């Protein structure tokens, strides 16, 4: 086909420990809106970052208008006419709209180093007129709504005479009306022959705006189809594929156990909307959803790390006013962050100190003197019980592997006698062997009567570990499935259920 603008073939890209792309293929035509789909970690963003010069590719080739090209830097992509609008907008809030659009290539007046502010504003105004956009070039970007900021990014991309425009989850922060505006602009651009790559998790939206769909899975190209020719169901099955499961583990009957945690009508801004659920003793509740579904936000709210607008948290039948992590610990709730390095472990301290950290008062003697004999025996106990691989309890946690760091954090919460453990992506960045050890540990904990909330973006993990699955989308709980009824397809379906399409 002669209107192919971009052709990417056999693209591979690996990061330490992860093969992000093993067989990236993508064909983009001018004047089309092309949706790029896949689960979290399928390689969509990586592929687009390769195309825009943010990551160098390991191998493979890129043809731009039939010519083989190398795109080593973002600047090189820009010069070719390829622009990307990231999920986190790349704007300078303190600068005006026009200053943002022309950053790096400001028109100069007379003297070479003097800016021609008038020209900057004038050219921006022309750009906006062309887009039929009502926006003052002199407004400070920081004062604009997210939707308007996105328009500024689009205008900026167009000002480079971009022929390829990549949008990563553009509608995630937008309201319905704002989405309509965005679609109007996108259709206009398509008319003008711009090729648009549209990355989104919102399948209904893709049916609405995209002409073709490319699906990726596990860093591989799966298929490209015309949007009209497929149903959402078909797209979903392409995304999840057929995965071979190991034999399903015995799921203990926990339904008639007592309820240890009850969350009622939890609300926080736009990130948590009327979330309610229960957790039984000895249960592993899997929480599934796509990125930005609000799962971590709910966990942080229950743990008292973020304030809530309204709602109740009931622990063991009693209302628990949790205002801070200290309160949560007092009520026996522990949170294992997805970002172990930043929130979970004190990496510079040794295993012993980390294990004692959440419950130091247990080890204090007269005048705050730490009973180091007792911390030592406690640490030794958990190193043995959790099979933490460390030369000694004096080893700094930084020097342990990801899986063992995770175990140290688990040990810390067990020392603090927490009965409710919230695991946020417990196996992220952990290699396969260590994963199964963590799984074993989770099962042991639950059989000892600990209740576990496990947030995970990996569906196989959810299906393997959970006794029950809660699915979230855009801050709401969109469904709850007993494990016997949970399949990747059903979870995916619930995870993409946007409010407006219910």
């Amino acid at each position, binding site marked *: 086909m002669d209107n192919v603008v971009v052709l990417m073939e056999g693209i591979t890209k690996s990061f330490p420990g992860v093969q992000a792309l093993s067989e990236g293929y993508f064909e983009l035509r001018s004047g089309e809106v092309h949706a790029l789909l896949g689960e979290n970690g399928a390689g969509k963003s990586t592929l687009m970052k390769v195309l825009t010069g943010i990551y160098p590719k390991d191998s493979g080739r890129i043809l731009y208008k039939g010519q083989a090209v190398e795109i080593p830097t973002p600047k090189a992509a820009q010069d070719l006419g390829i622009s990307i609008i990231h999920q986190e907008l790349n704007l300078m809030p*303190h600068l005006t709209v026009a200053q943002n659009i022309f950053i790096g290539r400001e028109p100069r007046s007379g003297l070479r180093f003097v800016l021609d502010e008038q020209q900057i504003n004038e050219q921006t105004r022309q750009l906006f007129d062309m887009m039929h956009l009502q926006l003052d070039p002199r407004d400070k970007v920081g004062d604009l709504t997210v939707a308007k900021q996105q328009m500024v990014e689009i205008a900026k991309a167009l000002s480079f005479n971009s022929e390829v425009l990549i949008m990563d989850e553009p509608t995630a922060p937008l309201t319905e009306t704002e989405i309509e505006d965005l679609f109007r602009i996108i259709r206009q651009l398509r008319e003008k022959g711009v090729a648009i790559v549209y990355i989104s998790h919102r399948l209904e939206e893709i049916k609405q705006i995209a002409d073709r769909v490319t699906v990726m899975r596990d860093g591989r190209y799966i298929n490209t189809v015309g949007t009209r020719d497929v149903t959402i169901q078909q797209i979903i099955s392409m995304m999840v594929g057929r995965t071979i499961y190991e034999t399903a583990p015995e799921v203990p009957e926990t339904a008639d156990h007592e309820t240890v945690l009850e969350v009622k009508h939890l609300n926080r801004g736009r990130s948590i909307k009327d979330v309610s659920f229960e957790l039984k003793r000895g249960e592993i509740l899997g929480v599934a959803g796509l990125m930005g579904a609000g799962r971590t936000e709910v966990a942080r709210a229950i743990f008292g790390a973020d304030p809530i607008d309204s709602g109740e948290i009931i622990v063991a039948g009693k209302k628990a006013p949790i205002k801070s992590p200290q309160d949560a610990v007092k009520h026996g709730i522990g949170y294992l962050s997805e970002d172990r390095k930043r929130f979970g472990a004190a990496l510079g301290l040794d295993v012993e100190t980390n294990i004692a950290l959440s419950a130091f008062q247990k080890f204090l003697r007269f005048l705050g003197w730490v009973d180091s004999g007792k911390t030592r025996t406690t640490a030794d106990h958990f190193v043995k019980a959790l099979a933490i691989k460390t030369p000694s309890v004096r080893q700094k946690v930084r020097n342990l592997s990801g899986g063992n760091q995770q175990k140290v954090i688990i040990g810390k919460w067990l020392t603090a006698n927490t009965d409710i453990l919230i695991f946020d992506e417990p196996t992220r960045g952990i290699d396969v062997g260590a994963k199964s050890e963590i799984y074993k540990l989770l099962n042991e904990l639950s059989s000892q009567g600990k209740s576990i909330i496990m947030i995970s973006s990996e569906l196989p993990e959810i299906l393997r570990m959970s006794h029950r699955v809660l699915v979230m989308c855009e801050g709401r709980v969109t469904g709850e499935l007993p494990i016997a009824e949970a399949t990747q397809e059903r979870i995916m379906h619930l995870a993409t259920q946007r409010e407006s399409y219910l």
Partner: protein
Amino acid sequence: MAVSVAPRGTLVRNDALQRVLAFGALIVLFVVFSLASPNFLQFNNIVGILLATAVNGVLALGVTFVIITGGIDLSIGTVMTLAAVVTGVVITRWNLPVPLGVLVGLLAGAAAGLVNGLIIAKLKIPPFIATLGMLNVAKGLALVISGLTPIYFNNAPAFNTIAMGSVTGAIIPGFNIPNAVLLFFLAAIIASLILTKTVLGRYTFALGSNEEAARLSGVNVNAWKIAVYTLTGLFSGLAGVIIASRLNSAQPALGQGYELDAIAAAVIGGTSLSGGEGSILGTVIGAFIISTLTNGLRILSVPQEWQTVVTGAIVVVAVYLDIVRRRRG
């Protein structure tokens, strides 16, 4: 979320608000001190305030740039001293012409700034640490070069007139405003033009507002960062020339502590320590607040120690105001 944007002009910008507050504070200080002491509004005392502002003010102009980029420069005080000493050596020990000595002094300041910039941009060392290192390096070099003794400019009487002569006095007899003050105002005007009208100024704000966005927009952020630190060093060099000329000597032990007053001036004037915001006018007002306060307290016979306590407290209050503004914004 409603799609509404505050109409232009209804919204007082954060840093503008702080400027208005700072200007108000300056006026209040003037009123209070002039009511408290009849000596305060004397012409000579006002000249004294202006003169005291000049050196600190020039340093503050320079540091305003790095603070807007989201960085900091702790070395400006001792770099100033280094520049003064270098100027002294060139003029008095090598007996070279005064203009050449001034030029070498300015270049010494710029060179120190360039080194700061290189270390920060290329080696990715946090500005706080890099410039803390330069603080000591410059201090040590000043001592080494001077041979631990003050350098007096007795052989070059012209040098003293750079700061202490009066162009205005020559035009209007009796209106003897020292040149140091005029140099400060001139430097402020130039700094303001650089900050608001030139590419360097634009990228100064861009770096502080969102460095990654600037980088992805094709701005060579490292080069511009180095340029900004060099410019700050150049201003320190100018401050070094002015202070040496004013004291008619280069005092190698002087300098440390000046950086805090200069940073305070910038922050009081609305330059945000988290970057992206600031103005030269604000810094000028901030510098005047500090010197007016010091002067007024001295006139009221408040002991020197207590003056230091007051200025220290004011800096903390100014930074706190900055944080409060941003939390709301």
